[in-house]
């Protein structure tokens, strides 16, 4: 992927079509629960991300049909797994089993800056990427290129 060179250029993500279709498949298969996992690749956090592959992890939330949770110890092991493959943990994905690929108020409130968040509409397959505006605590949609 071409790295945006202009300072202040809008954040951008590139992902292979195979990754996108895998995310849609996982989202559909997990219904009525939320699927979740990690996005691995290369990135400059908050600026651009290049997704190489995904790792799905069990949803540890107590009500997985409307929440997802990836506990810190799993995040640590995902970081290690990424490093072992020469990649970075660039972000996370989860699905909305009742539809919608926009960030919910819960997603906004719990998001970390810098990471890329993929959200899959488990009904239509709509798939959008978001990142936190670090000072406004709002997830903004990230321009996506399929490679």
């Amino acid at each position, binding site marked *: 992927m071409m790295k945006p060179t202009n300072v202040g250029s809008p954040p951008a993500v590139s992902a292979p079509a195979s990754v996108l279709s895998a995310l849609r498949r996982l989202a559909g298969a997990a219904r009525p629960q939320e699927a979740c996992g990690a996005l691995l690749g290369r990135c400059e956090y908050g600026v651009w991300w290049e997704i190489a592959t995904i790792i799905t992890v069990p949803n540890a939330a107590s009500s997985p049909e409307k*929440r997802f*949770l990836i506990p810190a110890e799993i*995040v640590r092991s995902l970081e290690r797994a990424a490093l072992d493959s020469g990649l970075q943990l660039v972000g996370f994905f989860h699905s909305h089993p009742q539809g*919608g690929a926009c960030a919910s108020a819960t997603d906004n409130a719990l998001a970390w800056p810098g990471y890329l968040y993929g959200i899959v509409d488990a009904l239509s397959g709509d798939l959008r990427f978001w990142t936190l505006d670090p000072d406004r605590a709002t997830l903004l949609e990230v321009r996506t290129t399929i490679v």
Partner: protein
Amino acid sequence: MSRIRVPGPLQLLADGTDEISVQADTVQSALDKLVEQHPRLRRHLFEDGGALRGYVNIYLNDDDVRYLRGMDTTLGASDVITIVPSVAGGIDPPLSVNELGRYSRHLALTEVGLEGQARLKAAHVLIVGAGGLGSPVGLYLAAAGVGHIGIIDYDTVDASNLQRQVLFRTDHVGQNKAVVAAQELERLNPEIEVVPMVDALRRENALEIMGRYDIIVDGTDNFPTRYLVNDASVLLGKPYVYGSILRFDGQASVFDATRGPCYRCLFREPPPPGLVPNCAEAGVMGALPGIIGSIQALETIKLILGRPDTLIGRLVLFDALRFRWRELQLRKNTDCPVCGTAPTITGLIDYEEFCGVPPLNQRDPDEIPELTASALKERLEAGAELTLIDVREPFEWEIANLEKHGATLLPLGDFAESARSLNPADEIVVYCKSGGRSAAAVRYLREAGFARVWNLKGGIKAFSAIDPDIRIY
């Protein structure tokens, strides 16, 4: 000194630092020093009251401090603190108790249900033009619970709109349509968000504005906007819900080039200007936009719900006077210049020009030569020597005029007399409020032997849409 490792994503807010060294006795004081040095990190690590946020985990070397002595865990000289996020999120409760009551008649339909209603709530729909069609479209989409509605219209409510534009009340006359529409729709349904845009949809802003919405509903009544909406919808891969009304006739369809034909498959080019009158000239039956606009709203709701039997590939025609419905099957044209297999239109073009006056040699001698507002602006900016004549009344001139471009006021009432001051050799552009009175003046001048006379299409009203300095009235 202990070290704190700042994880990659948080380095954004810590001036790129990946590790800082701090002199601290406990984990708490070490983190306090971190956020003192990098205050932008504070809101992501601590609650307002100062407690560590849930979902923030602190590791001392390889141990989670929760299993040591928490934030009071003491630090040794070579200890390394690592911040590890847990990652969480999820869907909001799909519908609140209020919404469950409000949408209960939808929830009773298995074809909608809770899932469908949640989809409506998540949907983003753009209504282009808040007029006869835009009114029922907006009312029904808002009532049905479409969660995010954008309305774009630069025009103000006129008394002549009230015969059919049911969003507006008499006391709205003179106010911007998009702004009033947004207020009214939010009064109808406070659960949704309505964004008014006081602007015209133009080549320059169409892709950006339409890009923010899932479905585009066209409620305008002019060819340039229709072709603009169509082409931009095709380029963006979004469905375009079409409706059109004139006198007693209405039509509606859904164009979605990803699944069927587009408007250009049906009408490759607009009819010659003047052949198809608009509603202002030819009139329109009061309740007709209610019927066609309701069809557009219905089809929009079905598209959001993902229903299969929409108007994609079908054009419905309604003759209100005789009360007859007809349906035409539409086919995708593989030679379509915008959605065909070898498209020649791959970006937006100048739609005013595309739908505007034909070249001089093809022009009917009785036809009034017109200049679009954007063409006039371009020529003025290029320094063209044009004589601008305003044929409105003095009180209208007081509200807004083109004096800064050298315009002269010659009201139509005395035009035969005052026109003697004009030079037949000059290139003259005549304007009024929306183009009707000036057309009469242009006709008079042509009959008097003036060869280079233009009527400003859409009058000063059209000009004010592209020049923010000119007041809209």
